[in-house]
């Protein structure tokens, strides 16, 4: 079964066709979401909207940006993503680089110490207790500090640093460069692909995370966008909770208290939350051309 039977051109065409079909399977549900978000809310309630709005309207998007808490959430999300990514990637690269120094006494133990944490966790409650003890809960730093390091990302960085040409580093050492200068002016510039990838992973992790915002902060002004969206989407669960556990006129008055965000507004918020990450991707993408690999921790 070599190319003599199936021409490389035909193969390539088939390949593109398959990917395009798959992308279609992804795009169609998104078109549905987009269509509802651009449809007037009252009309959307009647249902039956497919992939194109029935009654065009931008009111959902203007409404999103009119809501103070969503704007504030956007600010929190941007802050934690930018600050968390910059500090996190800087600290992780330093640690990962130090772990590649073969002569470092205790290197094995340190590596084990870090990687063992992937396997066990103490559970939510003890974790919460620690955050409280450190006075981190209900401050903006609870989004930054506890997520500074990620084991997988350290592993990616370590492997990549291990593969840098040793001769260049050694030459700099002979020239009398300090170790930190070597790290800063040689290792970092040579590792752009892996740094770009790690930055993407870290930034997306920050952007998507709603759990910390719902559990570890209480002030409304500290809730990131992802948490607000999640609240909007799960309000319904809270509703049926009341339905199940209550009866009588008190239940109805509680049900009336809950205003469910219209579906169109929900969909518009989903799109708004998604856009920044979709926009940064192409900028990161060009670094992938250089490639990265993942290696063992024993090297």
């Amino acid at each position, binding site marked *: 079964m070599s190319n003599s039977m199936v021409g490389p051109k035909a193969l390539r065409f088939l390949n593109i066709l398959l990917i395009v079909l798959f992308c279609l399977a992804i795009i169609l549900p998104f078109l549905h979401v987009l269509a509802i978000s651009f449809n007037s809310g009252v009309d959307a*309630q009647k249902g*039956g909207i497919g992939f194109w709005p029935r009654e065009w309207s931008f009111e959902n998007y203007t409404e999103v940006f009119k809501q103070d808490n969503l704007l504030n959430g956007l600010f929190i999300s941007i802050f934690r993503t930018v600050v968390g990514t910059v500090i996190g990637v800087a600290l992780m690269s330093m640690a990962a680089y130090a772990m590649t120094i073969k002569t470092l006494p205790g290197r094995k133990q340190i590596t084990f110490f870090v990687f063992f944490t992937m396997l066990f966790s103490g559970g*939510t409650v003890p974790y919460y207790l620690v955050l409280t003890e450190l006075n981190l809960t209900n401050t903006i730093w609870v989004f930054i500090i506890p997520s500074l390091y990620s084991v997988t990302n350290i592993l990616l960085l370590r492997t990549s640093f291990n593969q840098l040409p040793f001769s260049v580093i050694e030459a700099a050492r002979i020239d009398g460069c300090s170790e930190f200068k070597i790290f800063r002016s040689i290792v970092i510039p040579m590792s752009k692909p892996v740094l770009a990838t790690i930055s993407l992973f870290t930034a997306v992790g920050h952007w998507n995370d709603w759990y910390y915002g719902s559990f570890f902060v*209480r002030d409304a002004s500290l809730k990131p966008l992802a948490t607000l969206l999640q609240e909007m989407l799960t*309000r*319904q669960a809270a509703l049926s909770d009341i339905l199940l556990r209550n009866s009588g006129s008190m239940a109805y*008055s509680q049900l009336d208290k*809950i205003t469910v965000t219209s579906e169109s507004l929900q969909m518009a918020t989903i799109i708004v939350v998604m856009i920044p990450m979709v926009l940064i991707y192409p900028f990161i993408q060009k670094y992938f051309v250089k490639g990265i690999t993942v290696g063992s921790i024993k090297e």
Partner: protein
Amino acid sequence: MNASFKRFLTTVLLVLTAIVAVGCSNKNSEIITEKPEGAPDTWIADRTITGLVFQSANDAGIDMNEEVLAYIKERTGITLELQTVTNDNSTEALAAGLAAGDLADFVAFYLNNSGRPEMSLLLKAANEGMFHDLTPLMQNTKVYSKYLEEDYLPADTRDNIMFREEWNGASYLVHMAINRNGGDVGRPTVGGLYIKKDIVDALGIDPNEVNTSEELVELAQQMKSGNFVDDNGRPITVIGPTAWGGSDRDWLYNDLVWTGVSGEKFMKDENGKILHEAQTNYGIERVKFVQQLISQGLMTPEYYTMEETRAKEGIVNGSFGIVSDMHNYMPENNDMTYIPLGPISRVDGTNDMVVSYKSGYAGWAIPSTTEYPEHIMQFADWLASEEGKMLYFYGLEGRDYDLDEHGNPVVKQEVLDLKESNPEEAKKLGFRGVGAYWGEHLAYTDMDNLGDFGERSYGESVTGEKASAATEILDLYQYEEKFANARIIDGMTVQSFLYEFEGNDGGLSTALSRYNDDVLRAYYAKSIEEAQVILDESRKNLEKNRLQEFLDFVEQKESDGATIKF
């Protein structure tokens, strides 16, 4: 070390300092108890009171209006600050907060009755000294002191939540939403089954005469063969879910659920023995009923699972012949497409209206870490007073309402208009009438709207006849007559004895909620035999978790004089 590294270190140090500074600055605000000159009588202290609310974001109502806050500050010296943990699972959040001892000046939580899952957690916390004793604090108050009067509180609130026997007069939890007068239901509401009016007219039936599940099946078959269509011309689904989405509500088959009005599935048999539904045939009878409806295409298969948006969609389009639960004030039904059906009689054959003597909802407590707990109690008392309630329900005088000659609020038309045209914007005015619920936690008790404000619900005296669909439905249902003959019960439900019976073990309460899940599974079992196996297994699980012992325990309680509401 070279310069760049030093610069880097400095930055890290600066960041760390900032972290520590921010981390520590959010605690310990100053409390000034000395009353300044010229302060009003209602002045309590110059301090911040933070409340931590374990409820969903909207219920918590933490975004407060600046002018409302300023008014509170001026009258009481208090700066109110509400915070919320909006986890999916409010119980887990409450547990974690209690565990960390990281609580605000007061905490607020859902608590319908003592059978709520939060209850065992709260009792555990109270027993372990996590909360201040509130009884001495309540003695010096105007509104909350009523809680100490004989016969003010409903039995469950008094005996199971607030003044438990083992606490010897102390109390740690405040139950809210207590009506001032017994048997008062507030705004007259008709809930339960609703049916499309045009179908009733076409079939020429009397919807009030459908009172058994057999009659309901008959009606459903007629509706099916009538080939009715919805607004889009598609055939209707004869029986749809509730207006709020899929849920297992009893309305559709009241006579097939082994329970009284509590819905807890406990009931006395003809010999006076208390039984749980698992010990009767009613579970499997209901399964047969549901499977019959689904297989004949009379009930939507999504009856128990449909999402709220799609249920609303169905109602807006008139796609459901019967809606299994809604009420007369639903805005989607302003044109009276749907009118009440039934009700189906209960398993004991009764069909009359039953009203709780009083009922409660939600609650609050003061953690023992709070300084000057009396301030919190005084503040709550002020909020629950006439002045506080007026603020919470109607906003600010002059801005949101005027007073008539009887001292009752007259809502301004422009506020009502804004609420109608842009509810989100109106909500920012910051009071209950427009959908801001910050006062629910401390102010919403000793309720008597008619007595306090001259109207049952916000703006009623101004909008007047506008809610005509709702009133017409009341007439159709013969509400006045039924209410006049209503039975008033003040009792404790069977499940409210669970904690006393098993403490923190939780085995039986888990088994009871598993029974409800299992019945749902049985509805969707492939055959009646399979359903029977599921229900048998569930019964065995209940028995293993000491169901019989518990029933004996409750019977003992009843013979000791407790009134039980089945």
